[in-house]
């Protein structure tokens, strides 16, 4: 007897796992707890988002008019304070009619920083560009030549000062950190001890105390009669502080390089510095790029501390701009949000850039 042919029923189409609805089913209503959380969050959003929007957008006063702002107080944000004070906040106490100079200087420095992040520009000429731009920056800010009115450093402030402090202390701290990290792994006991002492002492104390030292004690250290600009003193303080942290990160990278690399370099007859420069450091630094970038971000944020020793960078110049004006003082919170947004933009883009670099470096490892 032959078995009658029965056609197997066609299988149902597979449940779609792509697209918005399946994604929501998985990620928003995956299980009972998840569903409850989603519903609570949606309810909260419905409750609060309109209020926030009302405050920040609908009832907000954008015009630089203190009376309107005062009238809208409590119901709407006063972005007018930013419209009114933005030049004071961004350029600090720099003479008002001369503020195109810090603007150009900041744009130059910012442009160079962005260019330095692009692979296309990674060539020897970049170092030359740095020298030129830094010289231009100081010439523009300081004046005193080409008919520019001289402006003392104690009137520098705002974003140019923040960027200058961050850039110069990063540029100064990095080579110092590499040297200290190498010194800490050196076989010479005296040099090793000095490096260990330096790193551990600095890492044990807060930056504020280093800055206090730079502003109170540094003048005592110098030969009588000489006076060093407060900007330079603070810069030295931040650089020494940042270098100690960075040295530990670099040391982490050095430790991860197998001993065989150094031994191979010795076998080839390379000198100590040749081996470090051509074999060890390129590998070690590549390993610790994320850590170094985090350190750069930390330095950028830490520059806000110099306001404690009366240098008016972004945070300080904001307080300065609003505290002196009783009409606008009640709207400090909006001004705080404004500079918080500036800091956020800088730090967030740095951390995104660090992710990109990491990807570039891991390319060599994935075959």
């Amino acid at each position: 007897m032959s078995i009658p042919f029965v056609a197997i029923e066609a299988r149902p189409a597979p449940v779609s796992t792509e697209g918005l609805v399946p994604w929501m089913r998985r990620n928003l209503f995956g299980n009972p707890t998840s569903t409850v959380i989603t519903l609570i969050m949606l309810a909260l959003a419905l409750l609060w988002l309109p209020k926030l929007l009302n405050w920040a957008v609908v009832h907000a006063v954008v015009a630089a008019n203190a009376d309107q702002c005062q009238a809208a107080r409590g119901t709407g944000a006063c972005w007018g304070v930013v419209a009114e004070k933005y030049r004071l906040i961004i350029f600090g106490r720099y003479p008002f009619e001369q503020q195109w100079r810090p603007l150009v200087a900041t744009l130059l420095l910012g442009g160079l920083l962005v260019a330095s992040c692009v692979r296309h520009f990674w060539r020897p000429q970049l170092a030359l560009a740095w020298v030129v731009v830094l010289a231009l920056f100081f010439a523009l800010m300081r004046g005193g030549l080409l008919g520019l009115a001289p402006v003392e450093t104690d009137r520098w402030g705002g974003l140019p000062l923040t960027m200058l402090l961050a850039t110069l202390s990063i540029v100064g701290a990095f080579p110092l950190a590499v040297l200290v990290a190498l010194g800490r792994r050196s076989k010479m006991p005296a040099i090793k001890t000095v490096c260990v002492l330096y790193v551990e002492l600095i890492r044990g104390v807060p930056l504020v105390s280093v800055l206090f030292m730079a502003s109170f004690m540094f003048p005592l250290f110098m030969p009588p009669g000489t006076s060093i600009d407060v900007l330079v003193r603070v810069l030295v303080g931040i650089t020494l502080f940042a270098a100690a942290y960075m040295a530990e990160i670099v040391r982490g990278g050095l430790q991860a390089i197998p001993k065989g690399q150094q031994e191979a370099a010795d076998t080839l007859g390379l000198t100590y510095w040749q081996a470090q420069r051509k074999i060890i450091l390129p590998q070690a630094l590549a390993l610790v790029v994320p850590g170094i970038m985090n350190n750069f971000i930390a330095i950028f944020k830490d520059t806000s501390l110099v306001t404690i020793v009366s240098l008016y960078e972004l945070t300080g110049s904001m307080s300065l701009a609003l505290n002196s004006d009783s009409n606008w003082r009640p709207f400090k919170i909006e001004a705080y949000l404004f500079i918080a947004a500036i800091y956020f933009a800088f730090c967030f883009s740095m951390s995104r850039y660090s992710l990109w670099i990491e990807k570039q470096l891991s390319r060599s490892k994935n075959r």
Partner: protein
Amino acid sequence: MTARSAPPPKRDWSLRSRAVRAVLYQVLALTLIVLAVWFLAHNTLENMRVRGIQSGFDFLGGPAGFDIGEAAMPYESTEPYWKAFLVGVLNTLRVAITGIVLTTLLGTLIGVGRFSANAIVRGLCYGYVELFRNIPVLLQLLVWYLLLTEWLPDPAEPISLGGLVFLSKGGLSYPVPVWGLGQGLAALGAVAGVVGGWLWAKRARTHFELTGIQKPVLLPTLGLVLAGGLAGWLAGGAPMAWNLPKVGDVAVEGGSALTPEFISVLLGLTFYTAAFVAEVVRAGIASVPRGQAEACGALGLSKGQQMRLVVLPQALRVIIPPMTNQFLNLTKNSSLAVAIGYPDVVSISNTAINQTGRAVECIALIMLVYLITSLSTSGLMNWYNNRAAIKER
């Protein structure tokens, strides 16, 4: 044939010998450093002589002459400087220790939230981390201080939470029990309960290792603590007196209070550091291979058991060292309190420098205090790390 023995290594006192150069470099480096230190010290002494600055720590015995807004111990402005410093150190420790506890809780919650099955929770946790770690902590402190001192109602008409806790520009007032015999005995009883619970946990562990049967630990311990406290309280005559805050004409009176300065330093440091702790916790959990969780499922462990018995012990090894760094950062960042006038050790030293001009001594004291705190924190965390570290043969 006679075996030729290798010639004895010739001491080469030329510059081409590595050993000689090493000695030379070190002597050179040390000489430079000694010269630099001598130069700085000489200048400092010379400057002090020229400007008539006195040096030495003798000023610590003299009367401080300034008031301190909040002190954890009795303090008057006529008391000596060393006592003012002590008040500052206690204030620093108070904000640092509270901050470390709160940061650990909040940061762990947010770090675990990054693994939530719910996309909204994941998104919020990610947003929190990116927002709070990319804004300078000083700015955050200032914003909290502004919110607490300008946006809250006046102390005469505070926000009331159940009529017991009051929040206003004057700070946060809350009820405290009137300290007496009963409360003392209750605290003693609770401590006895903790000791009892610890002994019980030890026994339960031995029992588990012998028989493989688990005994409950958490509930009996809690019960012992509560019972101990209750017994002490009853033995002391069950006192019911509380010191309640009341709304007065100009301010909230009575009870205990936290100043706005303390709250803003605490909130600022906690929210900022929690973003970093969350990342540390996330990295730790992510470092445990997925296969471990799958193996737990195969063994029939519940989600909670899986986290507690398998994932966390392995994640802790990765988490503890960077977590120690974050705790140290929090402690050091507490020095930013000087910007909003919380009287921590840096702020007190700042006042002392302005009054006495002994900058070198005061800054040395600050550094000493922070060095001791940092070293003891890392010592404690290293001890804990050794306990959590992988046990190999």
